[in-house]
């Protein structure tokens, strides 16, 4: 199985897809008055923005097609106490985690960094990592453009 030479697709959507999703999240936050309420501490505001960034990135880039985006969305929904229903795919059983202990230490560290990485097979981990990094870079670019646009008066 590991020698299968299937072309791995790590294509990432265009920048405006990310921008659109992020803007939508931000405007939702604004509608909830997250920016103007005086009793909301700065930390809470930053946390909300950060969460909006990750959730919108997951939606823009992977939705339910990527393991890392599913893990991200699931985590965010749990924080909101929502119930998330995903279409049933091949479920990664927990015993997989035990057999993955043969990985070198660095692969373990990578697993900890990647959302949902703990239950992936090593080959899938590499593919998901590449896609995650590309999406994260794109998201950072979008946010940086926003900051530049807002601060340049």
């Amino acid at each position, binding site marked *: *199985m*590991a*020698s299968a030479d299937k072309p*791995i697709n*790590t294509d990432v959507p265009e*920048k*405006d897809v990310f*921008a659109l999703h992020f*803007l939508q999240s*931000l405007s939702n936050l*604004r509608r909830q008055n997250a*920016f*103007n309420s005086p009793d909301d501490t*700065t930390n809470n*505001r*930053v946390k909300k*923005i*950060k969460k909006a*960034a*990750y959730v919108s990135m997951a939606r823009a880039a992977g939705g339910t097609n990527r393991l890392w985006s599913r893990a991200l969305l699931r985590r965010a929904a749990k924080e909101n106490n929502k119930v998330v229903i995903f279409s049933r795919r091949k479920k990664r059983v927990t*015993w*997989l985690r*035990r*057999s*993955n202990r*043969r*990985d*070198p230490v*660095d*692969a373990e*560290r*990578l697993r900890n*960094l*990647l959302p949902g990485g703990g239950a992936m*097979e*090593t*080959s899938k981990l*590499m*593919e998901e*990592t*590449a896609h*995650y*990094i*590309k999406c*994260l*870079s794109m*998201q*950072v670019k979008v*946010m*940086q*453009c*926003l*900051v*530049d*646009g*807002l*601060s*340049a008066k």
Partner: protein
Amino acid sequence: MSGRRSRPRQSSGTTRISEDQINDLVIKLQQLLPELGDSHRSDKVSAARVLQDTCNYIRNLHREVDDISERLSELLANSDTAQAALIRSLLTQ
């Protein structure tokens, strides 16, 4: 199939990955992410190094998201004209 219930140590080989296979995958990762640094093009680069660099790269990106979120929070909290500037800035990209 006997032994299904016990821990599958002797499975068909899909869960046990050898060193070579890990190296292959890491090389594939390196190809997928050219931004990890062209200085690692040499053949001698170890799998551990690539994985380490990848981890550091991800950590840096996370840190960037944190920093940018903080600045965004300051900028967006300031005034309501921020809303117009928001739209404006993204439309002129």
